[in-house]
């Protein structure tokens, strides 16, 4: 009996895989104020599930397609008749509602709606694990390879242009990475809580980091820690695993929010002494 036979271990590994990619990607979501964008992309994944089941395609493919399509539609310039957050709100809720309606039309298909909404991490199979880690590694690799371009475009699109980079392309990279992450994370935390895995660890890391890279690494670690704590709590207290993971991450965030300012103060004092 190998270690991977234990469903708890598989669950933790799946969650850690997602967290390691979601932490750094979440930093960009925080820096670029894309939280709602992440929500819209994640909610669209439910529509993807319904479409995949209806057309006998792999669910992963449907989710990836729907998330990517939504993200691309949202990235397009919209002429400015509607504010960006209004448009995001419309798309986020439209895709969620459409997804729920579409799922109800699927007669004869057994579908675990709660599983897609809130994740079903304890049911992760070895095959799921391989897909999750492949997706997470792809996202992480994308961020690492394009780090300087992504950072420059995030700092200032004009600066990126002046340095011969195309900030639009960097944004596309983030959009694709986001869709990919949503596709592999839906099994772990579900469509409704994916954004939490993106922004909560990143926000928790902010107060402790001095550099963007430090914040990204710390966010990944905090996310991984939250997964372990959440899965453990779920096992002992019989709570739903996905939400438990998010609760654990939020606990870290609260602790950081309380300790962060004091820490910064002390650091400033030390700086003055040295």
């Amino acid at each position: 009996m190998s270690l991977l036979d234990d469903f708890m271990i598989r669950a933790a590994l799946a969650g850690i895989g997602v967290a390691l990619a979601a932490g750094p990607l979440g930093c960009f979501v925080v820096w670029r104020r894309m939280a709602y964008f992440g929500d819209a992309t994640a909610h669209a994944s439910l529509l993807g599930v319904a479409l995949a089941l209806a057309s006998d395609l792999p669910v992963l493919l449907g989710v990836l397609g729907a998330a990517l399509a939504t993200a691309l539609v949202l990235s397009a310039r919209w002429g400015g008749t509607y504010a960006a957050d209004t448009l995001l709100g419309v798309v986020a809720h439209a895709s969620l509602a459409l997804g729920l309606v579409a799922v109800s039309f699927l007669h004869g298909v057994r579908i675990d709606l709660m599983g897609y909404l809130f994740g079903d991490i304890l049911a992760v199979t070895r095959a799921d694990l391989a897909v999750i880690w492949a997706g997470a590694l792809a996202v992480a690799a994308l961020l690492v390879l394009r780090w300087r371009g992504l950072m420059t475009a995030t700092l200032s699109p004009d600066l990126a242009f002046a340095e011969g980079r195309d900030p639009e392309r960097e944004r596309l990279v983030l959009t694709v990475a986001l869709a990919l992450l949503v596709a592999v994370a839906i099994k772990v935390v579900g469509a409704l809580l994916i954004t939490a895995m993106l922004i909560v660890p990143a926000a928790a890391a902010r107060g402790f980091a001095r550099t963007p890279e430090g914040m990204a690494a710390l966010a990944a670690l905090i996310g991984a820690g939250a997964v372990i704590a959440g899965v453990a709590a779920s096992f002992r207290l019989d709570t739903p695993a996905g939400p438990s993971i998010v609760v654990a991450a939020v606990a870290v965030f609260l602790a950081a929010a309380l300790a962060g300012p004091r820490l910064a103060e002390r650091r400033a004092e030390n700086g003055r002494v040295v």
Partner: protein
Amino acid sequence: MSPEGLAIAVPHAKPLIEVRGLTVAPGGKRILWDVDLAIRPDEIVTLVGPNGSGKTTLLRAIVGAIRPDGGEIRRSPSLRIGYVPQRLAIDRTMPITVDRFLALGGATDAAALREALERVGIAGLGGQQMATLSGGQFQRAVLARALLRRPTMLVLDEATQGLDQPGVAAFYRLIEEVRRALGCAVVMASHDLHVVMSASDRVICLNGHVCCEGTPTVVSARPEYRALFGLGTEGTLALYRHVHDHRHDVGGTDGAPCGEDHHHHHAPADADRSAGKEHEA
């Protein structure tokens, strides 16, 4: 291009960037039209013009951040831009030290990074958060990042906004030093007419289109310029000549022209300046 403009540019050097018939009209609203402009290596060109005259738009078109709606922009293969935007707003959610900010711009090694910080006069601030820098220090850090790219052309957009008067003077002195050391072209937009005019080889007076261009002396005498800036520019002109003379006397020492001091010794310039002030007020 006006004859004055041709006269003072380095005669045979190929332009780093050549703008022809540039029109920028987002959503049908014309901001710039029929703009012709060529920047040659080694010259300092200043854009002056009232608010909303398209200075920032023109600079953003030059760095490639705006696609022209008409005309063309030709860039020489040797063009490498170091850009200091009007205001670089780093989101509070992003922690970043000065060192990292510079490294992300392409600093290859620690030595080059230290040298750049020293050159712009903020050596020792490398470990500090960008968010905790003062306005002047921040602009210097952005300039250091631009310098690390070994630019053949520096583009500065109102880079001294938010700095106090001595800060402004010090910043432009720094630009002149940097220009001398690197031998790059400088294109800048500014409100600080006095300081800017004194440091420019060529001034372009912009108001949607190029109203006039030439040496600071020539431009400030042009009716188009006076129409835009009024009689206050007489003070600018006096100051320009004055500082220019002064630099001839000293012969390029680092003592650098300091406008404030000279006013005390030279009544005419002082009088001109106060006349200018009255007009502005």
